[in-house]
Structure formats: structure tokens, C-alpha cells
């Protein structure tokens, strides 16, 4: 061939660009608009999505806990009591149920939850008796700790 410099100008690019692009776009397939198709827009959107998902893992724990507390508060108000009273008295009776279990009980086991509310109410009354009463031996059962 007479013209030899033309072939020296051809560059061999990498063979993998398609798959590298697809690896990123697969995380963007459920997005809205051009960000699910175009690489330049998808890069930014996918990075934001990952950042949000990292932050969201910490928020999820907080949000679930507030949801459980709201549900337990609503359930105790049905029985004529308030949430802080319930929690305080249950801890005094050394009932170590956490909020998740208590909210599940309030939804699926309403009579068990009623008995928990009654237990807290009884312990509250005993506390009042001990504080305001005559200082005699309290007739209470729930506030006595069994020493082994």
C-alpha cells in the first residue's frame, strides 16, 4: 500500500465498554426518565441512590422504633393508660419485652396486650400505695423481688 501513515492512526480501544456500562445501568433500570437509559445521567443517579440507601439503613431503625412506639401508645390508650406509664411499670415488673414484640402482640394478640396493660396498672397502684400509704407492709405481689 502506498499510504502507510493512515493505518498508524487507528486506535484499538478496550473490548469491555458495553459490559462495564451495563453493570452500572442494571442498578438504574427501575428509575424514571432518561436516567434509566443514558449512562451519563445514570452515573449520578445511581451514586445518589447508593448514598440514600446507606443513610436509609440508619433511618430505618429509627423509623421502625417510632412506628412501634406509636402503635403501643395507641393500644394502651384504648385501655385507658398512657405509653410512658406502661413502659415504666413494665420495666419495674422486670418484663423485658421490647417494643417490636409488644406492637406485634397489640396487633395479633389483643387479649395478651390487655393483660400486660392490667399488669402495669396493678404495679402502678402498688407504687402509689407504697409512696402515699401508711408505710405498712404493702399487700402487693408484683413489687416483691424474689431473692434467691
Amino acid at each position: 500500500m502506498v499510504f502507510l501513515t493512515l493505518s498508524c492512526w487507528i486506535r484499538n480501544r478496550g473490548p469491555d465498554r458495553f459490559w462495564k456500562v451495563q453493570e452500572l445501568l442494571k442498578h438504574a433500570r427501575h428509575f424514571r426518565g432518561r436516567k434509566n437509559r443514558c449512562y451519563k445521567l445514570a452515573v449520578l443517579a445511581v451514586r445518589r441512590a447508593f448514598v440514600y440507601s446507606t443513610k436509609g439503613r440508619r433511618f430505618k431503625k429509627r423509623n421502625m422504633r417510632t412506628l412501634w412506639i406509636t402503635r403501643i401508645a395507641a393500644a394502651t390508650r384504648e385501655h385507658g393508660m398512657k405509653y410512658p406509664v406502661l413502659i415504666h411499670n413494665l420495666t419495674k415488673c422486670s418484663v423485658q419485652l421490647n417494643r417490636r414484640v409488644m406492637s406485634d402482640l397489640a396487633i395479633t394478640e389483643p387479649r395478651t396486650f390487655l393483660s400486660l396493660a392490667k399488669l402495669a396498672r396493678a404495679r402502678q397502684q402498688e407504687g402509689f400505695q407504697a409512696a402515699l400509704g401508711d408505710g405498712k407492709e404493702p399487700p402487693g405481689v408484683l413489687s416483691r423481688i424474689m431473692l434467691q
Partner: protein
Amino acid sequence: MTSRGTPSRFLRSVLQNGVGRYVCQLKRVSIIFSKKAQGSLGVRDFIEEGVVDYAKKNPGTVVYVSPQPCRVPKIVAEYLNGNTKEELVTNKTSQQVLEVLTKLTDQSGLDIIRIRKPFHTDSPSIQGKWHPFTNRPPSAGFIRPQSQHAE
């Protein structure tokens, strides 16, 4: 790796396996290895020693041993629900190959993706689920037969 971008499933067993008889979910195991390469040394040792015992212990699983000219020895496991799992066993000892096989035997064939809840019940409520009228006393009285009106 968002929770919405990646698939997830609920915890379940395949057709309540284990409630009655336990059925091993592993249908077929194919051990692909090379007769001469050094990466398949452990696999060859395993096939000399342990494969017959393994096959006798798991009568419901078919074990295929296929020596092929291949660079990378593999164990391909097929499950009763149609899923396939491939494990590479390059440069593993015979004991490690046995461990890989026991791991594959104990798995059900369900996908290994995020499990949404670590528990599952078919009957979540014993006392009846809460509804707005559970804790409300009835406002009207009992329903009585209307004998007085008839007279």
C-alpha cells in the same frame, strides 16, 4: 445495591419440607474436573476417597462425575425447583470439596437474595387480629327473638 433495585423474597421452606418427611432438595450433582491439571488435585482425591460415601449417604441425589479437559474444576448442583448453582473448587483439598458438597446438600434451591424477615408464620394471630371493635363494649344489647311483637 438498593433494596428496591435488588430482588428480595420472604423466608419460606419448599412445600413445608421437614414438617413431615424431609426430602433433600438437591436433585443432581455434576463434578467437572480435569484428569491432569493441578487445580483439580483435591477433586481427584475426593473422587478417589469420598464420593462413593457421599453418594451412599444421599440416596436421593444423583452424582455425575465427568472428567473433561477443563482449566477450572466445578461442581454444578441442580435443585428440585429448577435452580442451578455452580461452585468453583480450584485448588481445594479433598476435605474442603466435601464441605462444599455438604453445604450444597443442605441448601434448598431457593434464591440466595435478601430475606425480608427472618421469620414466617402461617398463623400469625391466635386470639384474632385487632380490629376497631375488639376493645369496644357492644352499644346495643343482645339480639333477642321478637316473641313480644308477635304477641
